[in-house]
């Protein structure tokens, strides 16, 4: 009985426990924010009239701004809401690239070609 007590106590302190559904909720929030902001960035790039590589650089700049904004929303302490810092900074970086290019070409056509 004594050894099993010790073993279960060690188990309790070794494995970092966290609420998985809250972590999933936080990841969903990040993904929604990034998707919406990549669409807005696409519309912006189309209106200003970026061509070629400048547009992709603009997309990465907007994603960096999103990372800063998400860190500010999490209060600059990612330990409370996420298990690792890399998640909040680099999670959906390339996921919004397709939406960005879609809305970039859409807005560019709308404003500059028609």
């Amino acid at each position, binding site marked *: 009985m004594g050894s099993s*007590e010790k073993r*279960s*106590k060690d188990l*309790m302190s070794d494995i970092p*426990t*966290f*609420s998985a559904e*809250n*972590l999933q*909720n*936080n990841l*969903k*929030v990040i993904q*929604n*924010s990034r998707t*919406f*902001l990549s669409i*807005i960035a696409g*519309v*912006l790039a189309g*209106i*200003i*009239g970026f061509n070629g590589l400048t547009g992709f650089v603009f997309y990465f700049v907007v994603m960096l*701004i*999103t990372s800063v*904004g*998400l860190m*500010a*929303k*999490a209060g600059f302490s990612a330990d*409370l*809401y*996420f*298990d690792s810092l890399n998640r909040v900074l680099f999670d959906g970086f390339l996921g919004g690239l397709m939406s960005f290019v879609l809305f970039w070409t859409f*807005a560019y056509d*709308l*404003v*500059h070609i*028609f």
Partner: protein
Amino acid sequence: MPFLLTPLIVVFYSNSILGGEISQRENSDRESNFEKKRKRELLKMNLGFVVGVFGILILSHAAYSTIQYRGLLKIMEEEFSRPPMNVVLELIIGVALCLWAALTLPGKFLSIHPDSDENRAVSLPDNSEFMIFNHRGRLFPPQIDMKF
């Protein structure tokens, strides 16, 4: 112009609905912290929605101004290098509003620590009917100090 007022009407209507529910209750001054938090969260999401709609409207107005500016440039036969300064200002305002809405609308961050105040173990799981407590675990002394 009326379609600009509909988000405001949505905000006020939802506020009055929430206010009406509370006034009809008998113990209206004893509303729990949980309900207060839900109302505040709903209010913030509505405000974020209105701000986001305004941001998108400002962006589309900036796009329309740029189209007109390009038409003007075609008449004067000049090259398009960048949008005029007032359009750039509108774009900055619209992007700032949309940024705020994108960070507020999707929802709050929830704490993942099991020890924090809002993650208490009181909430019943969905399969509580299937849980039995009459097993041999009742012979072990309790080791986990959970907050109830």
